[in-house]
């Protein structure tokens, strides 16, 4: 997410809107955005609505044993179609902004 913030100008120039989603309540996301200087939207999925629909629930993996989201990235085009998916196999390995920007060039 730090990488996304750094590349935010490139994302905007490509017409791509990055959005981060977690089960954190809005206040927690607001604190995170303030502390880390994130200016893209952080959305709160407290009931796990989106996380369930995208089959990303990591049951009991939260700090207090709550269900959370596994890390995952999706690029969705303006028609609502998924154009690129990254489901990491290792918690530490995340998609790099360059990967997404390369795919974004192909979108109209």
């Amino acid at each position, binding site marked *: *997410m*730090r*990488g*996304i913030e750094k590349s935010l100008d490139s*994302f*905007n120039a*490509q*017409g*791509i*809107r*990055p*959005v*981060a*989603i*977690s*089960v*954190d*309540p*809005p206040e*927690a996301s*607001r604190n*995170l955005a303030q502390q880390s200087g994130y200016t893209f*939207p*952080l959305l*709160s*999925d407290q009931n796990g*609505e*989106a996380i369930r*629909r*995208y*089959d*990303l*629930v*990591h049951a009991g*993996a*939260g700090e207090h044993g709550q269900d*959370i*989201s*596994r*890390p*995952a*990235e*999706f*690029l*969705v*085009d*303006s028609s*609502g*179609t*998924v154009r*690129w*998916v990254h*489901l990491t*196999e290792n*918690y*530490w*390995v995340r998609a*790099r902004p360059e990967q*997404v920007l390369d795919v*974004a060039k192909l979108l109209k």
Partner: protein
Amino acid sequence: MNIRRLNWPLWTGLLLTLVGFFSYISVFMWFPVTRDFPWANLLLFLLAAVLLFIGLRRAFAPDRPHPRRSKILASLVTAFSALVIALFIFGFFVFARWIPESKGAPKVGQKAPDFTLTDTSGKPVSLAELLSTPINGNPPKGVLLVFYRGYW
């Protein structure tokens, strides 16, 4: 303690082990090159292992002033360091891979399921809105959804 008698390879080995362990989260995690594969940390551990081995051999050499004490101490320091290195390797290569498979996640070419979530000011936001609200006056070409574990 006489500086010439100090088992410096042993203690440097311990120090490098600890540096190798803690530097991932404090330093190397922030750069994709050292984050996606922790070669910098593994290199530090390798160097630490060599030094610990030398230190262990020194401690078991016959010329030590307190042979019993240095043997026990060196064995404990080496065992502790080995445990720290094993913990790191387990954490990165085993524990970090305990992630659900997400076989039902939307695939390329499929419709992204819509959702309505709450932004940081408590306002509801849907995927449809994210896909239609202009960016710098132009209609967006797409939305990048980044799901993360959260910190709460």
